[in-house]
C-alpha cells in the first residue's frame, strides 16, 4: 500500500503549494522520468504478449509473404497519419534493406501526393488506396494495411479490392481490431491488444519489421529479384 509520505516523495510538486522554483522543476522532472520508465515497461510487456498470442501466426504470414515474392509478387503498403509513415517505412525496408538482405519491390500508396489528392478531390478519400490497387495489383502481389483503430474506411475498401484481385492480404490493427476484425477479406490479421495508440504503433512496427525480415530471408537461394528481373512494369 502506498502511503501519503511515499506519494509526496514521488511527486513533491503536487504538495509544494507553488508552481515555480527549482524544487518544482525537480518534481516534474521526477514525474517525467518515472513516466518514461513506465511507458518503456509497457511496450516490453506488450511485445511479449504479441509474441505469445501471435508468434506462430507471424511466422506463417512471413512464410506466405516469402512465397509471394518468390513467385514475382510485389508489396503495397497503406495507412493513414502515423500509419502512413509505417507504410512508407515498410516499403523502404524492402526496397533499401539492411546489409545482407535482398532488395525487393515494394511501394507505399501514400508516397505520391498527387495521386492521393487527385483521388480524394475527384472521388473521395475512402477510395485513395483501393483505386491505386485496382490500377497496380496482380494476383501474386501482397497488400499490407496498417491502422491503430481498424476502422479506417479507406483501408476497409482497399482490403476488399485486394482480396477480389487475389492478393495476399495482411492487416495490422490495434485495440480490439475494429472493423478490420469483421472483414472476410484479410488473410492474416494481427491485432495489438492495447488501449494506447502509441504502444499499438510501437508493437505494430515490430510486427511488420519481423514480417519483412521473414519475407526477405525466407526463400532459400534468394529471390528472383536477386537476378536481373522484368522489373516494376505491370
Amino acid at each position, binding site marked *: 500500500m502506498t502511503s501519503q509520505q511515499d506519494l509526496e516523495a514521488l511527486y513533491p510538486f503536487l504538495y509544494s503549494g*507553488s508552481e515555480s522554483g527549482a524544487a518544482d522543476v525537480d518534481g516534474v522532472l521526477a514525474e517525467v522520468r518515472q513516466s518514461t520508465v513506465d511507458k518503456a515497461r509497457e511496450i516490453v510487456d506488450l511485445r511479449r504478449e504479441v509474441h505469445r498470442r501471435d508468434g506462430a501466426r507471424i511466422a506463417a504470414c512471413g512464410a506466405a509473404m516469402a512465397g509471394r515474392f518468390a513467385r514475382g509478387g510485389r508489396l503495397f503498403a497503406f495507412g493513414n497519419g502515423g500509419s502512413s509513415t509505417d507504410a512508407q517505412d515498410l516499403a523502404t525496408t524492402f526496397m533499401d534493406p539492411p546489409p545482407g538482405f535482398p532488395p525487393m519491390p515494394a511501394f507505399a500508396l501514400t508516397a505520391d501526393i498527387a495521386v492521393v489528392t487527385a483521388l480524394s478531390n475527384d472521388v473521395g478519400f475512402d477510395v485513395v488506396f483501393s483505386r491505386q490497387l485496382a490500377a497496380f495489383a496482380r494476383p501474386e502481389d501482397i497488400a499490407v494495411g496498417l491502422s491503430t483503430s481498424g476502422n479506417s474506411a479507406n483501408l476497409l475498401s482497399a482490403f476488399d479490392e485486394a482480396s477480389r484481385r487475389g492478393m495476399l492480404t495482411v492487416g495490422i490493427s490495434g485495440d480490439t481490431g475494429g472493423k478490420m476484425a469483421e472483414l472476410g477479406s484479410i488473410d492474416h490479421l494481427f491485432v495489438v491488444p492495447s488501449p494506447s495508440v502509441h504502444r499499438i504503433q510501437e508493437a505494430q512496427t515490430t510486427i511488420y519489421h519481423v514480417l519483412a525480415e521473414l519475407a526477405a530471408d525466407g526463400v532459400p537461394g534468394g529471390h528472383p529479384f536477386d537476378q536481373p528481373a522484368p522489373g516494376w512494369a505491370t
Partner: protein
Amino acid sequence: MTSPEVRDRKFFDDRVAAAFDARVAPLEALIADAEPVARACHAMAERFHRGGKLIVFGNGGGSTDAQHVSVEFVHPVIVGKRALPAISLTADVATMTGVARRVGFAEVFAHQLRYLATPDDIALGLSEDGRCDNVLRGLEKARALGLLTVALVGGDGGDIARSRSVDHVLGAASTDPRVVKEVHVTTYHVLWELVHVFFEHPGVLTGEVMSR
C-alpha cells in the same frame, strides 16, 4: 500455408522468437536513460513555450520517423492536448532533390533550416547509426542559428553523438536499424507526451532550462 519454394516452418518460428528477444535489451537501456529523456522534454517544452516550432529530419526509415513526429505534434492522438507546430524537412521532396542536385546531398537539411528556422525553434535529427552527413550538417546549422538541437541515434552514435553542436543525444542500444527505429518510435512518443506534462506545470517553464 507454406509453399514449396520457401524455407521450412521451423526457420520462420525460430526467427520470430529471436527477433522478439532482440527487442528487450534496448528497451531496458531506454529505461536506464530516462533522465536524459526527461531533460530533453523539459528543454523542448521551454522552446515551444517561447513560441518555437519543431523541425525534424532524417534519411530512409528516419525520414518516415520525421513525418511521424510532425504529425504527432500537429495532430495529437490524445483528445484535449494542444496542437504544437512541427514540420518534417523530408516532406518537401522537390526542395530536397533540388538542393541535392545543385549543392549536394549533405546540404539538404542545412539549406532548409537556413530559410525555415528561427532561433526559438528545435531541430530534431534522426540517424540510425549517427553517421548521416546531412543530419549532422543540419544540426550544426541549427546550432549556429541558435536552435535547441536534439538527436536520436543508434549503434555507437557516430559523429552525431560526438558533435558539440548537439544539446541532447538520445541513443538506441542496438546496431539493427529495425530495432533502432522501434526504440526511436517509443522515444519520440514519450517526448511528445511528456512535453505536455511540462505545459501542465507552466511555472517550471519560465526559468533557466538546463539543456546540457
